[in-house]
């Protein structure tokens, strides 16, 4: 061959197109051809190790690559290599590493957890991604919440209670806020009076005469606000009714209103239309008990836990 090349120039395939167009027939480079053979050998080895060729209704499961994991009965079990088995084993290995922390977390009462420096730092580091993945979409990163929609978790104001037990209950079971609309039960003047009274409760400027009228309505059976918000208007955490006497606003954006008329309109809007939102999803199906306990401590530690 080498001689041919020397004597007669490069070999051609012998095809001639359009009278003169010819095609060289050079041999493939050795590195390429051996590389090609190597991929064939690799494929055969691969078939043997990993699940590969289909046979009837099953397939060649592969040898050598068996994966051992613990089954639901607590016994070790092996299965041929597949990504699900691999994931199960990896999850179990990771769980073993985290087990001392989670066991301690599960066994200690809430108030002891934050006093244990090692566990407390575990809660902070493991809670951060959990909070970011599951809670931050509504309560925002940092837990600051969003006025008009999602309560602030970093302050000391709690709708359903800020104790460890209440936070745990809220995460586990979820919540659903509700206030009936008063558009039909009350006329516009009554709603304005009530809104003035509600504003006056937290020290906002409001027409005194209207507020006095609103106060009577608040405690009357016509509007019956006291039934949920309490005689003192401080709300009831067992049903999640708001404390109207503090300066914390979730649904009516009073702090964001430009003037007194705007503030009044914000409160009127809530009384008129009521609320059927404030839905906190339930997490018991998505997170396990340990993760919920960890998040409970994490949220409690955000600043305002009671």
């Amino acid at each position: 061959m080498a001689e041919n090349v020397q004597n007669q120039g490069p070999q051609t395939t012998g095809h001639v197109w359009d009278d003169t167009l010819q095609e060289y027939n050079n041999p493939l480079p050795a590195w390429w051809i051996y590389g090609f053979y190597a991929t064939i050998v690799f494929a055969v080895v691969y078939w043997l190790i990993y699940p590969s060729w289909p046979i009837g209704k099953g397939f060649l499961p592969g040898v050598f690559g068996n994966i051992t994991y613990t089954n639901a009965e607590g016994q070790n079990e092996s299965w041929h290599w597949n990504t699900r088995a691999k994931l199960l084993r990896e999850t179990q290995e990771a769980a073993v590493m985290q087990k001392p922390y989670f066991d301690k977390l599960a066994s200690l009462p809430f108030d002891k957890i934050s006093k244990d420096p090692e566990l407390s730092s575990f809660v902070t580091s493991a809670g951060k991604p959990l909070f970011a993945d599951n809670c931050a979409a509504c309560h925002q990163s940092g837990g600051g919440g969003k006025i008009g929609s999602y309560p602030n978790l970093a302050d000391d104001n709690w709708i359903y209670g800020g104790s460890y037990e209440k936070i745990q209950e809220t995460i586990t079971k979820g919540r659903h806020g509700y206030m009936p609309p008063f558009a039909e039960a009350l006329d516009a003047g009554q709603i304005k009076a009530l809104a003035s009274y509600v504003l006056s409760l937290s020290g906002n400027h409001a027409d005194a005469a209207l507020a006095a009228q609103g106060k009577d309505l608040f405690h009357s059976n016509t509007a019956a606000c006291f039934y949920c918000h309490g005689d003192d208007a401080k709300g009831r955490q067992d049903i999640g009714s708001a404390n109207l006497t503090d300066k914390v606003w979730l649904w009516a954006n009073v702090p964001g209103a430009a003037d007194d008329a705007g503030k009044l309109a914000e409160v009127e809007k809530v009384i008129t239309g009521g609320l059927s939102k404030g839905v906190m999803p339930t997490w018991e199906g998505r997170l396990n008990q340990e993760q919920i306990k960890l998040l409970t401590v994490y949220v409690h530690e955000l600043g305002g836990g009671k």
Partner: protein
Amino acid sequence: MKLNSELLETNAGVLLVATMLAISVGGLVEIAPLFLIKNTVEDIPGVRPYTPLESRGRDIYVREGCYTCHSQMIRPFRDEQLRYGHYSLAAESKYDHPFQWGSKRTGPDLARVGGKYSNEWHVQHLIQPTSVVPESVMPNYPWLSATPLDYSDVADRLRALRTVGVPYSASEAEYQANVKQFGPEVAETLRIDKAQENLVAQAQAGNFDGDRAFVSEADALIAYLQVLGTMVDFSKLKPEDLVKYR
């Protein structure tokens, strides 16, 4: 004529046939066995066809091209399981035509988004994603909650899905079969003759977009999003049983 490369290179028709044969080998080897291997689609309870409203929501999901940025396929990797939940099963998309697995994640995976957020969050997020997720790059979809849903042809759409194997019932016998397989409550939602009625009823009862005045496209889309990944009760399945399907 000898059977050599010259034959292929000088006859376009022969080249075409030979190329197609060569390529189809790859397809046959990789795809065909999946239809024969009995473990491909897991035999697990819970997966049902979409209700008419969810099905229209899915159409809107496809129309708006949600799949170009969102996958619906949680792969069996630890990081994905930690973030998104249990890995997706083949059975969970057995009534999807076409499936919405997607191939790129600009946004997060949505395979288990059902129940993760409230309906109200979805409304706010569809109107303006940055209002709830400041760092989001998702476009605004404000028209969804303002546009009435066209459900005049929903029965035809279910009929089309039925022809590709989704068990929407067109006869009493099929309805009875669904009662047996899915229970009476689900079977009722799969009746083609009651598709419009069921769609409106679910939208009214669910009030997904927070506005009962009319059935909007957001109603349908949110109904669909809220059911994603929620049909299988994983607390009733042993992890090792799922391993053995592969």
